[in-house]
């Protein structure tokens, strides 16, 4: 296994048509096999960074390497080794989970047999077997989140990006999702997770980075950061480092 899942070096990015550079000389390393949490207030740059690491946005300077492959140079290969679970429900609500997984499985390059086996496996793990043929439009928020996750892990990625994967779901669904993610991590999948749910983050992540205004303001394991700053929980640490003013 490679020692680093992600290496970001001197990253520069600016949104077209907007004033100011969003990221400048931004550096970050995420070790392979880590459960890495990316936190920060609204507008800090979490989603932008996630979009840059997944190739959705193009950066203007520096480099981002995913398992030693520059993402702008090998987009097709890089796209085959990571999975992405976006915050939005990125599937076709008119179709059933099985139909969605069949479509996305083909796009991941899986064979028909692989798609069939993996679909049944994921539906079973995420408790969706009995509703696998129902149109997603009839699903609850929690069920939709689980399908959103299933699509992202269909091809058993080596690196999995998760942008608020449990927002708006019930306790049962959250429990199922977090358990599944931990099991995935045990098989060697690196998790890169972004959320506002600090308790969940504390439960899932073994390393975190706090970013604000396009800069990393803290980066270490949660235990080290809590003891360094004298806090018992993440909320106190978060407020100390990012302040109490609104960031709307």
């Amino acid at each position, binding site marked *: 296994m490679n020692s680093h899942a992600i290496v970001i070096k001197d990253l520069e990015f600016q949104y077209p048509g907007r004033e100011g550079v969003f990221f400048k000389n931004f550096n970050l390393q995420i070790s392979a096999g880590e459960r890495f949490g990316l936190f920060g207030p609204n507008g800090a740059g979490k989603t932008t960074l996630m979009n840059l690491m997944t*190739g959705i946005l193009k950066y203007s300077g520096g480099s981002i390497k995913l398992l030693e492959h520059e993402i702008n140079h090998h987009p097709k290969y890089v796209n085959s080794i990571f999975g992405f679970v976006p915050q939005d429900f990125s599937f076709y609500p008119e179709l059933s989970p099985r139909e969605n997984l069949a*479509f996305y499985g083909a*796009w991941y*390059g899986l064979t028909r047999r692989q798609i069939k086996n993996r679909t049944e496996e994921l539906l079973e793990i995420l408790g969706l077997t009995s509703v696998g043929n129902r149109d997603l439009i009839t699903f609850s928020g929690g069920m939709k989140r689980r399908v959103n996750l299933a699509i992202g892990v269909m091809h058993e990625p080596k690196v999995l990006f998760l942008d608020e994967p449990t927002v708006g779901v019930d306790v049962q669904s959250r429990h199922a999702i977090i358990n599944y993610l931990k099991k995935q991590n045990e098989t060697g999948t690196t998790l890169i997770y972004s959320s506002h749910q600090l308790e969940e983050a504390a439960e899932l992540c073994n390393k975190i980075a706090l970013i604000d205004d396009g800069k990393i303001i803290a980066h270490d394991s949660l235990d080290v950061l809590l003891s360094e700053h004298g806090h018992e929980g993440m909320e106190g640490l978060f407020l100390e480092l990012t302040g109490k003013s609104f960031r709307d």
Partner: protein
Amino acid sequence: MHILWATIIKDMKILLRDRVGLFMMFFMPILFVVVITSVQNSTFELVNNNKISLVIYNNDNDSLSLKLINEISKIGLFKLQISDSAVTENKISSHILSKDALVALVIPKGFTKLIKNKAEEIATRSLSDPDSLNEKSTPLKEKADSLKMYYNPVMQASFRHSVDGALNSAVQVLQGEAIVKKLYEAVNQKEIPQDLEKQILFGQFPISEIPLSSSGNRTVPNASQHNVPAWTIFAMFFIVISLGGVMVREKNSGSFIRLKTLPASYMNALFSKQFVYLLVTFLQATVVFLIGNKLFPYIGLPALNLPADIWGLLTVTIVCGYCAVSYAICVGVFANTPEQSNGFGAISILILAALGGLLVPSFAMPANLQKFLSISPLHWALEAYYGLFLVGGKLRDIWMNILSLLGITALIQLFTLYGLKKKNLI
């Protein structure tokens, strides 16, 4: 290939599950073509088959006014009503405005005498001094009592001119006959034989109306031949309402973005949309043409005669559908909301239809607008269909139209790719 096939299956399923969308895509164009063809057919029949109702108020009741009525009835353009009663403007007005008649003709008292006097005068002058004909003739004394034609203002100018021309020709026949008779009598001192009179007056060189066609078929085109192809093109381009909306929904739902993170080309998604919706436009056209061909006669409309060159028809339909689908995708890529896509899509198709000669024939358009004909893909599609349906041409006769349509399609696709890049979608 597996990716493209899986995408086509996905798009097909989404399309088939949208029952309202399917209804809009198939039933509405059929309804549209039937309604428009029915409306246009009634106009077509008014010009070609139906007769214009004409009421004649005969205040003369003498030989030549009766003969005039006879001549008018022979023209075949009018459904005549004769009224001998005294006439007032009010009575004519009520007749016309209640639409009992579209046109009224008032023959003045002394009409026969007036015509005979005029013929006598011309014959006398012709025989005494031919040069005197060049002199300005004295106008009819009874100008106030000349023939008067009243018409309903709803009659379009072209109709009015047809009626006016027909009535004038009947009067001229009458006048000519009277002059010829007088001249013959003066020269030969006896009445003109009837066969000679007929030869002089009606022996004019005949004009035969023959519709031109490449196939040599001389069938007169009907309203269905004109309207069904035109409005089928319009219906195909209206796919922008559903496909444009689908594109916007996919963009806004994040499906597009997710596809961007997958190890396959986004072109699969574009090709799939093009294939599925091209199939839709092809089926739309097939259903509409079959209804025109098989069902129209049962609902009182003239049957649509399909062109002899079926391969030509298939080619034009596929190329036109491909252009319509490309346009819809382009609108969907640039629109940010379904409202933008639907609003711009619908209005732009109406404008392109107007520029393309679907709403008003291109030859009747103002000269400055005719310059823009070539930018409308609907114009090239219409020309290609007319080349097959009306002129009876073959594929080789309409290849320029097809090439132009393909050229516009290529430009639309380039613009779409630019939009996809600009919006960071590929």
